[in-house]
């Protein structure tokens, strides 16, 4: 029985190219550029379309409202990048924010000074971060499940401190803290932009930013290279918790009242922006500027649709789809890169 495996030559075009590494490198760079700025380009095009097609869009008022209204979510999204970069999840940030806002509102209504109220709120954030870090980093529990647990526990805590009621009448100190304007820009937006700049610097320009990337990318290699992997992961959870609590202080002042049931609404949106942002600028890496671009892109799209008559449900659909598109795009891009390698 003839059992011959053979491959017969087909026609070959062109000359063999032994410098196999060269030409793909060029096309990879070209593709890299397109990939890096695709999201920004889509955002600009979307903005121009909205400006051209929707008359109501052409008002400075709408644009500023749009930006300021997203600042809380932008702050949360930036906080989310901190732990995500080290390869872990911190899903609890949105409830930590509401919990901290509730603490501020309730303590203030009992006449506690703003300084003490803020200190206690930040301490709450630190405690949540430390608990997360203890379970995830020290004991080694899966971070997704752990922080889903602390998310839920904090949701309960919010109802406990507020007595399941909306706490209104947040003192003027907090309202001014979030809503007073500098050069026409509300402080809440300034906080968000400053955090973008700070995180951009840390992520892109410092060894610490590089270390977080390696810890998220290959933890074994990072440890073997002598990085303090556990300390950095632990620190990321602490910073994440404290910053989430700070966003809670801003939140209390921005809305002037705290609804204990609102945490769930803030859970997914930051992560959608972060994942979409990771497909831009520093492709495949959670980054601050990409997150900003992604969030504003989502906001422009949603506002445009709402002006065209869509109801509030459009927000959830838009964010949900954006998250799925972002992770799909990242997956496909990764597959394409790998396929070019032997």
């Amino acid at each position, binding site marked *: *029985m*003839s*059992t*011959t*495996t*053979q*491959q*017969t*030559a*087909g*026609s*070959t075009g062109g000359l*063999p*190219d*032994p*410098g*196999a*590494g*060269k*030409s*793909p*490198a060029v*096309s*990879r760079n070209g593709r890299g550029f397109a990939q890096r700025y695709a999201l920004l380009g889509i955002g600009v095009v979307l903005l121009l379309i909205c400006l051209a097609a929707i008359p109501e869009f052409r008002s400075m008022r709408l644009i500023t409202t749009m930006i300021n209204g997203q600042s809380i979510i932008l702050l949360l999204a930036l906080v989310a990048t901190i732990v995500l970069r080290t390869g872990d999840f911190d899903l609890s940030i949105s409830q930590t924010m509401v919990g901290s806002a509730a603490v501020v509102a309730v303590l203030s209504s009992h006449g506690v000074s703003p300084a003490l109220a803020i200190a206690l709120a930040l301490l709450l954030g630190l405690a949540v971060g430390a608990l997360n870090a203890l379970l995830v980093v020290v004991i080694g529990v899966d971070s997704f499940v752990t922080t889903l647990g602390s998310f839920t526990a904090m949701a309960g805590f919010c109802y406990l401190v507020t007595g399941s009621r909306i706490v209104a009448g947040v003192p003027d100190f907090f309202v001014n803290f979030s809503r007073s304007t500098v050069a026409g820009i509300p402080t809440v937006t300034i906080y968000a932009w400053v955090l973008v700049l700070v995180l951009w*610097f840390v992520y*892109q*320009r*410092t*060894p610490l930013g*590089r270390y977080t*990337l*390696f810890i998220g*990318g*290959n933890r*074994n*290699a*990072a*440890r*073997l*290279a*002598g*990085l*303090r992997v556990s300390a950095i992961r632990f620190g990321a959870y602490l910073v994440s918790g404290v910053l989430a609590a700070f966003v809670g202080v801003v939140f209390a002042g921005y809305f002037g009242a705290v609804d204990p049931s609102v945490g769930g609404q803030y859970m997914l949106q930051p992560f959608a922006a972060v994942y979409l942002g990771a497909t831009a600028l520093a492709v*495949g890496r959670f980054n601050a500027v990409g997150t900003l671009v992604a969030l504003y892109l989502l906001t422009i799209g949603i506002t445009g649709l709402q002006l065209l008559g869509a109801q509030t449900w459009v927000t959830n659909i838009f964010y949900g789809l954006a998250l799925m598109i972002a992770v799909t795009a990242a997956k496909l891009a990764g597959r394409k*890169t*790998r*396929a*070019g*390698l*032997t």
Partner: protein
Amino acid sequence: MTKAYGGAKAIDDLDLHVKAGEVHALLGQNGCGKSTLVKALTGVHSPDSGSATVFGKELTYPVTAPHTHGIAVIHQDIGVVDQMTVLENLGVNAGYGTKLFGNVNTRREKKVYAELMERLGIVLPFDTMVSDLAPAERSLLAVVRAMRLLEAHNGSGSGEGQLFILDEPTAALSGGEAERLLALMRRMADLGAGVVFISHRLAEVMAVCDSMTVMRAGKAVASAPIAETSREDIVAAMLGRRMEDFFPDPPAEPSKSGVASARARLVVDGITGDVVKDLTFTVHAGEIIGVTGLAGMGQEELPGLIAGVSTPLKGYASIDGKRLQARSPREAIDAGLALVPGNRLRDGCWIAGSAAENLTLPVVPQFAKPWGIDSGAEFTHAQTKMAEVGTYPNDPALPMAAFSGGNQQKVVFAKWLQTNPGVLLLDEPTQGVDPGAAHDLLEDVMETLDGGSAVVVFSGDHEQLAAICHRVLVLHHGRLVAEITRASGDLTEATLLHACETPAAA
């Protein structure tokens, strides 16, 4: 057959003929197109032109289910689940011989596999967790699993009509373990199957294969029966040039007594881990020693114990007289130690990061300025270091994934050589690296010896150890059972293998 990617041909007009009943070696340097060929045969990619005929039938592209054509591939990373039993792993791709919601007939399953293994002359315990198997047994399991699937499709009870492709199956195995797999390959071919064996270990190829094809830059540059070729010919075909020797010679051994004696750089005193027991040795400046043993005898654990990856139960290592607490790798690195890990993808690098980022990771603070990392200086530094080890292409901006295995390993070497380590631990330093690149890397190691470093090589590759080391320690169940020195004139591949296996027989 031709396959091109973005202008660069990975496979170029390739001819390959494998006969039934033979073990055919497919050889070539990293990145020469071997993997692409395997992918084309199994349907991961489709060729741009040309065809493949398997057992008289031409493959139609895209290939959707290679096993229906009689093709089975066993990868280096063999895809078995650690936390399941042998039997559960065996049945998974054959659907446990039943329907999705059907009842799994364990007794019948066992009978099928027992019969299959008897024919292959191997024994695997069905109810053992795969995590408890020796490395070679995992490969054997993968072969048995593939064979069942093929037989289920062509119904024949012999190896006829089956083509196995084994992609570097022995790369992670030590000499004795690899023997078992090689014996199985021989047996499969004797039963009538066609076996394609992809390997960088030429000694294995010479021992077990009937014929070979060498690929270079996507072309088949040589094809001959093994009996009519020689090792030198094969390497010449792979490299496109003749290579005088496969391994560089170590420099003269430093003197360890008298006035001009070299200082002791690494002292290991009574170190004990899960496997390693009460091990004591000293390595001097300018000295290169090897540590070997059969798989699981402790030479895998030892580098981690010395470098602080895991804390020893007893004993300690000290570097230049400084005793290590071994709580973290950081402490050892600060003391002047560098470990090139055995598993590059798991421990050595971040594959999505650029070569520059990976290379400068241990030294990146030195590029930090008040305004942030000086990326220009970092890039230039990376380019210089990559040029020193001969990385191709020398583009630090490329992600690690864009380099072939040998070039990735060069970047990992450069990462540690730049720290001028006083003690350099190399765990399987040339695993999965082609002979040309391996020679380059080992020459770099020899240069560090001239600079006064102490080097320890942990490897199951006895031939390499015999060629490059001043002396080799042999471990058995974690204990030092033999020490063979170059000065004695007895340091050869054969004596090392003998020293590894004799305690096992006793």
